[in-house]
Structure formats: C-alpha cells, structure tokens
C-alpha cells in the first residue's frame, strides 16, 4: 500500500521534492514551447488562410507532445542511470503495488488534455469551414455564428462572392474548368484573397485533391459532386497532387497551382479563353506508350491511361 515514489518524510524533504519537481516541469515546459515554435519550420509555406490555423494547431500539439515525450523518457532515463542493480545485488526492489492518488492524477490529466486538444481542434475545424461531401446541399450558413472575429479576417466570410471552379480527376490527369469563361486548363490558376469554391469530380476511381502548401485535402468520389472551399493568400506556384491511391501511374498525377493577383488571374482567364483546345502532355500516357514499345516487358499489365485531356491552356 505504501506508495511514495520518491523517498522523503520530513516536511523539509517534502518541500525540496516539490521544489525540484516544479523546476523540472518549468524547464520541460520551456523546452517544449521552444520545440513547438520550431515546428513551424517543418512545414511548407502558408499559402492559404486555412494553413495558418492548422499550423498553429500543429505547433500546439507538438508543444504538448514534446512535454509528454520528454517527461516520460526523462523519467525512464533517470531510472536507467540511477536505479541500476549492483552486480551481485540479488535482492528485490520495494514491494509497491500501486498508489491510488497517483493513478487518479494520471488518469485525470490525460482526460483534461484530451478535451483541450479536441476542443481546440474543433474550433479550428469550424473556422476552416471546409466542406465534406454531405454538406453539398446546405451551402455555407452554419459556420457563421461560431466564427470569432479574427476568423472573419483570415477566412473570407460568406457574403463575399466566390470563385467557382470544376476539378476533374481521371486516370491520370487533372483538368480544371472555369465554367463562367468556359476555359479548361491542366494548370490550376487561383486569385489571392478570394474564397474559392471547387466542385470535385472523378471520372473513374477515387482520387484525392491535395495541395500541401494549403494543408488541404479531400478525396474525390466518382459519381459524387463534392464541394470544397478555401482561400489562397500567398502568390506563388505550388503543387497539387493526387492523394488517394488511384492505380499504376498514381505518382504522376501532379499539377501546378498558380496563385496570382486577381488582376493577373483575370488576364490569364481572358487569354486562355481565346486559345483553341489542344491535347495536353500527359506523363502517364507518355510512359504507357513508351512501355508498349519496349520489346521486353518488365512490368505487369496495367489499366490504360485515359486520353490526354484536351484543354484551352497547358504548359
């Protein structure tokens, strides 16, 4: 029943024990916060409003995780160094079966942490206001009430007009269609600081729409029309990849995402609209064709890539 983990019976010793523990906790906390700050550098540039929120959440999780990891491994390391049995010491350690107080503490703290993490994650999720496939029907209105003031700054609020773009995934190419101008492209052009609304479609199997610089991802399900919203905030060229395994040439299903000022964006659209559609180069199709020519076939039979998309704009 006796459960003192660290020895010490006199009040003085007790006091010292607490002092040491508190010091250690503070040092750990400082180190963890440092690691949490550092964690921003492990991530790609923040090119969408959503990415800022997610990075803050990630950094928070890293801080907490570092604290727990260092706490546990630190204690273990201390034991391993200082609690070794002497070579010929065959005796047993103290017979301690448990300690109710300690067990309650280390059940309660994780419970609190879980609610904290879940609560924070929930908040971020609400602010992002990304949509899953089931939310197609009732467009944006639920999220509004819950958004604290600053979210409205970083993430365009709903009153604003959105830019509607269709995204079509197929084995193995991306096609983007701008319905208003009836422009098709294999490069995704987006204006900055404007809410983008995509309609994600697939012609064959599951694909995934993923732009690491935006921290955003959504699987595309054939036969469904999935709405997806976000707000790009930083000009530059990023990569869009297929994030849901889609067969042989999965890795080649990459497209460029160009985020530019609204002015340049409009110019690009206007210019693209004047081009006559031509077949875009397609890596999967090219590799497939090349393999058909090889005399010795090393690979196994594969699904044939779809025809290279015919679009107004491609590189």
């Amino acid at each position, binding site marked *: 029943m006796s459960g003192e*983990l660290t020895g010490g019976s006199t009040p003085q010793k007790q006091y010292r024990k607490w002092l040491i523990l508190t010091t250690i906790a503070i040092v750990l906390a400082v180190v963890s916060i440092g690691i949490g700050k550092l964690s921003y550098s*492990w*991530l*790609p540039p923040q090119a969408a409003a959503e990415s800022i929120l*997610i990075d803050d*959440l*990630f950094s928070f*999780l890293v801080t907490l*995780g570092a604290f727990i*990891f260092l706490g*546990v491994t630190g204690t*273990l390391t201390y*034991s*391993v160094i200082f*609690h*070794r049995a002497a070579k010929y010491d*065959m005796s*047993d*350690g*103290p*017979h*301690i079966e*448990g300690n109710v107080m*300690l*067990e309650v503490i*280390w*059940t309660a703290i*994780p419970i609190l942490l879980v609610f904290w993490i879940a609560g924070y*994650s*929930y908040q971020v*999720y609400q602010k992002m206001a990304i*949509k*899953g*496939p089931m939310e197609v029907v009732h467009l944006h209105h639920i999220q509004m009430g819950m958004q604290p003031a600053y979210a409205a700054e970083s993430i365009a609020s709903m009153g604003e007009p959105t830019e509607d773009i269709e995204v079509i995934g197929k084995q193995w190419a991306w096609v983007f269609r701008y319905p208003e101008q009836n422009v098709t492209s294999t490069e995704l052009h987006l204006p900055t600081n404007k809410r983008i609304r995509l309609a994600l479609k697939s012609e*064959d*199997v599951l694909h*995934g729409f*993923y732009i*690491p610089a935006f*921290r*955003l*991802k*959504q699987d595309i*399900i*054939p036969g*469904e029309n999935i709405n997806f919203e976000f707000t790009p905030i930083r000009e530059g060229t990023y990569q869009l*990849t297929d*994030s*849901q395994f889609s*067969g*042989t040439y*999965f*890795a080649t299903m990459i497209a460029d995402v160009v985020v530019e000022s609204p002015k340049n964006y409009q110019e690009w659209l206007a210019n693209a609209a004047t081009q006559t559609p031509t077949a875009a180069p397609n890596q999967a199709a090219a*590799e497939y064709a090349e393999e058909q020519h090889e005399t010795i076939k*090393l*690979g*196994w*039979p*594969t*699904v044939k890539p779809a025809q290279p998309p015919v679009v107004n704009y491609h590189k």
Partner: protein
Amino acid sequence: MSSTPLENKPAVSHSHAETVTTWKTYFSFSTDHKVIGIQYLVTSFFFFLIGGIFAMIIRGELMTPESDLIERTFYNGMFTMHGTVMLFLWTFPALAGMANYLVPLMIGARDMAFPRLNAAAFWMIPVVGVLTMASFFLPSGSAQSGWWSYPPASTQVPLGFWINGQSVWILAVAISGVSSIMGALNIVTTIVKMRAPGMTYFRMPAYVWTVWAAQIIQLFGLPALTAGAVMLLFDVTVGTSFFDPADGGNPIIFQHLFWFYSHPAVYVIILPIFGIFSEIFPVYSRKPLFGYKVVAISSMIIAGVSGLVWVHHMYASGTPGWMRLIFMLSTMCVSVPTGIKVFAWVATIWGGKLRLNTPMLFALGALVLFVFAGITGIMLSSVPVDIHVNNTYFVVGHFHYVLYGTVTMGLYAGIYHWFPKMTGRMYYEGLGQLHFWLTFIGTNLNFLPMHPLGLNGMLRRVASYDPEFTFWNVVASLGAFLLGMSTLPFILNMVSSWSHGKPAPANPWRAIGLEWLVPSPPPVENFESIPVVISEPYGYGKTEPLTANDPNVKLPHPASKPVEH
C-alpha cells in the same frame, strides 16, 4: 472455477501420452500448444524476412526521385504485399504463436481448450503464405492496390481473368481471417474455462489479460472485414457492383467495413505487446507491476473503445463533418487507458533494481518509441492536422514507429525473455545487445525522416517523388538497410543458441509466474500436477509462494467415484 461438486463430473480417463518433442515434431500436425506456438513464431519470422526484403526493394526505389529501379506496377505490388505480409503473415501469426505458447502455461492449463482446432488454425498460415507468394507468378501480377484494396481501383482488373492478383489476395486474407477466428475462439475459451484452481481473473498475469482483450477484438471485428472481402470478391470476379459507382455502388461502404476491423486490428497487435511489457518490466526491475488491476482492466477498455474509432482513417474520404468530429473525440479517448499503462510501467521501473538484459533493453526501447508514435497518433486524430498529413509519409512514420518500433521490438523482447523457456537454452547476451542497438538506431534512422517528409507533403504509395524530398529519403533508405542488417545478429543468435547455447535452468531470470516453475522447456503436458494458485502475480519484494503445490510433483489421485451419465 465451476462450483459444481467434483464428484458429479465424469472422470474422463486420460492417458498421459509421453511423446517426446523432437525437431520432426515441428513439421507435423502436432496438437501441443508449445509446438504450435513455436511453429507460428518460426513461420511468421520467415515471412517477416520476406516482407522485409520487399521493404528493401521499396527503399531501394525511393533512393532516387525518379521511378527507375523497378516498374511502377511492380512498385505498387511491392508496398501492397509488404503491408499484407507484415500484418497478416508476421504480426498476427507471431502474436498468435506467443499467446499459444504462453497462455496455457501462465494460467496453469495443460493445453488449449481445442488442441486440434489450434493445429488446424496454424496450418492455414502456410497456405495463406503460399497463396500470397503465388500471386507474383500470375499473368496479372500480384495485388497492387495497397493493403486496403480500396475499390474501384482494386476492382479494375486489366486482364479480366477470374484468377488475378486481387482475387487471390482477397482469398488469402479471408483464409487468414478464418485462421484468426479459430485461434480467437480457442484462446478466449481457454482463458475463461481452463484456468487452474485459484487462478482467478485478477490473478492472471497482465499478459493473459491483454491477449484476452485482443482476441475479443478479433471476434467482433474480423467478421466485418470478411463481409467486405466477400462483397469485394464478387465485384472483382462475377461483376456485381457493390462498390462500383458507375453502376450505383458505393465505394465508401467498403471503407467502413474495412476499417471497422482494420483499426481495431492495430490494437489486436499492440495489446499483447503491452502484455509483454507488463511481464518484462517487473522481472528486470524486481518490482511488482504498478497498479496491476487498473492495467489489466485498461486492456479491456482499449478493446472496447477500439471498436468506436475507425472513421479516423477516413477523415478525408466521403465523411461528413459531424462524423469527423465525433470520431476525433473517440479516437483521442484511447490515449487515456493507454496513458494509464504507460505511466504504470514508468512507475514500475522507478526505484527498482534494474538489469539491462536484452529483453529489458528491447522493452525499454519499444516503450520510448511507442510514446513517440502515440503522440503522432494523437496529432493524426486531430481532424485539421490529419486533413493535411493524411496519406503522406507522416502516417507511414507514425505506424512504423508502432509496428516496427513497438510491436516488432516488443516481440523481440518477448522472444529473448522466453527463449530459455521455449528452447531450454540461453541466448548469447552480447549478440542480443548488438541486435538491440542496431535495431534501435536503424528504426529511428529509417522512420524518423518520414515525419518531415510527410509534413512537407510527400505522399505515400508513390514510386517517384519531387526532388526536394531526396535528402530525407536517402537517410530513410540508409536506415532501412541498417535495419535489414540488424536482423542478422538476431538470426545468428537464435540459430547458434538453440543448437549450442548453455542449458537453461527452469527460471533463469528469477521471475515469478507459473511458466517459470516448470523445467525449460516444459514437458509435453506442462505440469505433473495442476498448480494451485494462492497469490497474486508479481510478488516481487515479498516471500509468499505463488502456488500451494509443486507442479512438478504428481499429486496422489483422489478416490473420485466414476460417474454415469
């Protein structure tokens, strides 16, 4: 135990068949749980090497950004078969082997409840293995759509034959499922029905609790996977359209059926490893398991909660917001009972008299890597973070820290710890320590770089990648090759110790537990007389005996009347 008067039971006469276990026994349809346990362990380790060779090929391809070492179709086959072999032919059978060997010994039974069923379950494993390997030689090649085999990609069969890599894969997984169900029935029945007198539930070693919890998961989870597999098989072969959206089907239903089992499956894998920790830390710290009862019960809580979290693998799929959030909370809840265990182990070690033998080193290393993996798991469970890193190498990093860092290293810990018991020989400590350090360093070198890769958006299941990712991929590949080499001292150690090692006494580690009361290796029916358990497990620091009798001495048979039916 049952309270019916003993006299009323039929005294089935039973011949103590004094068969001797020789090397030939291991190639036969033996019904001895210890033979079957070792059959499982050796077979599964063989497949571990095969799965490892696949991993070496994967890492070889990923040394450079281009897809240059192997064809893309073959790469896809490689990661599919790597995942499949590692899960269905390495971890599951290896853990089944451990449980087979240890559970009857630990609860004081002579064998499992259904010995013949047990042998039949084992012999399905080689069948699964042969089927899996045979699929490489089909014209279609092996299955290539990942170990999840998500439709519709998995139902696209270019050659259109009935017999193709995908259908053979489904068949193999189904047989492995049947084998697991048979094993689970057997183990659960054994634990509930075959405990020695005095072996109450709260006197069972924590390992037995974890195995029990894990096998209950198998029983409620596997049938869902079977259902999904049956439907998928019909889609691939006869052309039904359960999961084919082009014909009104719904691929998301497959995902639900798949993960309803395959998430709990990871706890089927990890729970017995927790059990191994709970056995090893007390022995090498010379202290009782801290908070034994809570640790025991937490296994059951984990098993229960594990059935309620599967959608965290589908946040980015066709999952509505409310579902994402509910499953986020339930997933995070797993950390509470798991944390209880982690802290209990730390408290067990704290203030003990530590001896860093190979099993202890492996267990400590595995514990540290587990805490790391658990923390990345919690990050994944947070919907917004997972939306970013889902299907990237961050996930691959997370699960190799558990599957290699914790499970495989935990299995090594268990194998070293019970090696003297199983073989009657001591292993070589020096080789063991070398094995540990190579493994520990290799694991981190191999799998840590996957985290920054994933955070920067490198996807999994790609044979080619953006050149910006090259550096960490080269580090990971070098780590992988080191990890591959780390198996060599282990193999050397096992083979040479088994044939030439120092004979092991009954209890080389001065451990407390029924299995340590009998000779190494234990005789065919384990105990001369069934042990009568009179105290709780982990009596380190006390002097009370565990049993009232010496199980190696035959007790006189009481004059029980023969009973008519």
